[in-house]
């Protein structure tokens, strides 16, 4: 995963969501945004545009790859897909997120 400060949780979770989305199938930017919003049920209120710097960052880190393709409606669009490294990173990230969430859950339960 790209280096980031631990406090940058929002950005981190956005990366995680993007990777998760792409693990299902290759998709263009707008599709990813739709999917993220559906999954999170609108809980993650971010600008749709901030998805693109994130995608570029992930591509530079070698976690996703991109190429031009055409949509069902015959429009040209940039399709993003997960690389092998991205798949591994997703696994690790999900694991650490689960641990973090479980820890947080335990703290909340005791109080």
């Amino acid at each position, binding site marked *: 995963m790209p280096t980031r400060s631990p406090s940058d949780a929002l950005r981190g979770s956005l990366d995680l969501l993007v990777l998760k989305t792409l693990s299902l199938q290759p998709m263009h930017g*707008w599709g990813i945004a739709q999917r993220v919003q559906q999954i999170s049920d609108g809980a993650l209120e971010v*600008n749709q545009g901030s998805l693109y710097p994130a995608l570029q960052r992930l591509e530079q880190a070698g976690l996703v*790859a991109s190429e031009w393709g055409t949509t069902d409606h015959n429009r*040209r669009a940039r399709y993003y897909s997960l690389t092998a490294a991205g798949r591994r990173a997703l696994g690790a990230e999900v694991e650490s997120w689960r641990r973090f969430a479980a820890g947080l859950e335990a703290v909340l339960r005791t109080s």
Partner: protein
Amino acid sequence: MRLFHAARARLRLLFARRAAEARMDEEFRFHLDMEADRLARAEGLAPAEARRRAVVAFGLAERHRDAMRDGRGLAWLGGLSLDLKLGFRMLVKYPGLTIVGGLAMAFAICVGAVVFETVRLFLAPALPLPQGDRIVHLRNWDVEANRKEPRALHDLQVWRQAMRSVTDLGAWQDVTRNLVGRDGEARPLRIAAITASGFRVAATPPLLGRAVVPADERADAPPVVVLGHEVWRLRFAGDSGVVGRTIQLGDAYATVVGVMPSGFAFPVTHDAWMPLRPEAPDAAPRAGPAVTMFGRLAPGATLDDARAELAVLGRRAAREQPATHRHLQPQVMPYAQMFGGAKSAAETGLVVVLTQVFTLMLLVLVCGNVALLLFARAATRESEIVVRSALGASRRRIVLQLFAEALVLGGVAAAAGLGAAHLVLRHWGLGFVKANFADVPFWFDPRLSPATALYAGVLTVLGAAIAGGLPGRKVTRDIGTGLRSGTSGGGARFGGVWTAVIVAQVAVTVAFPGIVMVEAREQQRVRSYDVGFAADEYLAVRLDLEAPPSASPAAHRARFATLVETLRQRVAAEPGVVGVTFADRLPRTNYDDHAVALDEAAPAASSSASRFTKVALVDPSYFGVLGAPILAGRGFRAADAAGDARVVVVDQGFVDRVLQGRNPIGRRVRLGEGGVAPDGPGADSLPWLEIVGLVRDLGMIGAAETTRGIGLYRPAAPGDGFAPQMVIHTQGEPMALVPRVRALAAAVDPTLRVVEPQRLDGVADDLLWMMGMWLRTTLTMTGIALLLSLSGIYAVLTYTVARRTREIGVRVALGAPRRTVVAAIFRRPLTQVGLGIAGGAALIAVGAHVLARTYQFQHWPRGFSLGQVALLVGYAAGMLGVCLLACVVPTRRALRVQPMTAMRVE
């Protein structure tokens, strides 16, 4: 894989900036369109409203764009170009550092480039012919005798028919013939008698006419010759009508059928070409003339294919013809490796690495020094660096800046160094090769190749990493301290390594003049050697006669002797010729050493007497023509050359070293010959020779040798008894007589060759040229070492003074006398230079001691003369003075420190 993806994405984004921008715009547009469509569909909004909502949801497009641009790393690129710009400004701002550091780096890069190019030339020579790397040389190697077997006409025929991996198999034979020009002057021409396939292999079309074709090889075909460009230009004035003309080559005639273009000298360094027509084309195995074979790898075939195929043929020949081929091993190799070169890529690599280790050491040493200078400069800019660091510049960023500065300096130095390397290779490279090797093959062309330029680029980056990276790391390591303590005090210091480097350099600078002195003394010795007669009035030419294959050796020698005698009379009759004589060697060339035994019952008691002498065969007129008086006894008489008169003349060196001063006249000696020692078993077969005369030393010693000459002369008939050098005593410039001698020789017999004309005082010219080159190289290295030591001392001192500004100010304020302050500053450089000079003196002493034990210098006077010691002491004192001069500027700066300024620095 991940690294690959990441690198590709980065590179694409970095370099295709416009494409990245376009991609970004298109992606944004697509996104907004899709979102607006969705909103219009899902919520039934009017298109304009849907668009507005989509834009709002997207957020500020410009902000996302900026985020992406930053992510592309353009900011970093912008920083580097700024660093480079700053580097150029620094070059101009500190001209002293630029000149000293640049010169030193240029020197290292120049040496590296020349060494690399030379190694490349020798180890991986490339043929400047179309697809030259596919041309191969084939030969038989006699594993028993460990030498090549050149009588290969039989195998050539066999291989020609059997081999599939090599096409156009052919061979050539060296032939030297006199070309008699219209002026009657005969000059020897180096001709290749070559199969027509040679021209297919070389794949170079003729400039005029045609090349040799297979039909020319038939025994009954008319004789033809193809001329080289040089011969055509010089001997036929570039006449395009030369094709079809008949020219005289020795005692035969041939029709010129073509002229080859300029620079063409295949197979080695040939002036003209004739068809190869062996007397008996179907030569028996291991019989016939010596030939050299070549061919071209068939399309698709590799050298390994050819090796495998040839190995099979070799085994079959050994089985079927054991008498001749049992010990023969056929070999095939790249053509240019015929005269050496590495056996394998691994060997090439090893030699390249070994030679480059030297270059790298030089580069590290030089760039270490430049690093010292840059460090001193960076230290004076410490406040700038501290401020930048405080403003958020990372350590890497600052190191990168210093690296960029060094890279700019290195780039300028590399340009200068490559220019110098080009000049060195053009002016001295070929001369060096020619002075060391008799034949320089046509592919030997020392010049800067792209590979060398690339290598110089690598050296530059490496040099910049050392010269900029080291000080960068050192300066930035202490930034924290610098921030806490203000702008001065604390911070980096020069460690023991720098001190050691400076001391070592001063030592080398002191020791080098010792080497220069030895070299200069050798050069002076060679130049001023007294050969015993006025060598500048003599012309020497070597005479040679083509041997017809049918003539018996005895008949050939007799004919040669007659022709030589005729030529002697004709030359002697020329106006301006004082005398003509002959010898088998020229004075100051390498004579053969022979063991010598005296006829005394009890041999010389002293073991220091020499048991060897140089022997020369001379015409009886030799001493008379050289004007060398007979000191005792008599000279040779004409009858002595007959062969059975067993008389010799010795020189003064023989009397001093062999006879140890005893009277030579009437004494008898025996000379070792053909492996028989004159005092061992079988010595009785050797004749006793009577010493009849004594002459002064007449250069019976090679120019490079340092021992005392010892010489013995035997009389013989030129041409019959020995291959003669004709020595002509002239009035006026000897070389002016050369054309006349050639014409006379051609008139006597067109097959009589006149080669290597030279003035007798020019015998040692090649040697002197080499010595001069070494002397210049040593002087350059001394100069660079001196410059580096001085600048190093200067840099350290400047740095120290800058560091101690406050301390000096306090001392001056407290009333310390100037002398104390100066002494405090000078202590360190004085110690360094003093240590260096002591080290250098020790080096000289050790060197002189070792030198005196070598054979070459064993006869040099032991130790140094008073004058030389005085010279070296003077030089050391000079060094000290110059080094102290380097301290003057920083010291004056220190003494100008005003106490108030110094205090205010805090």
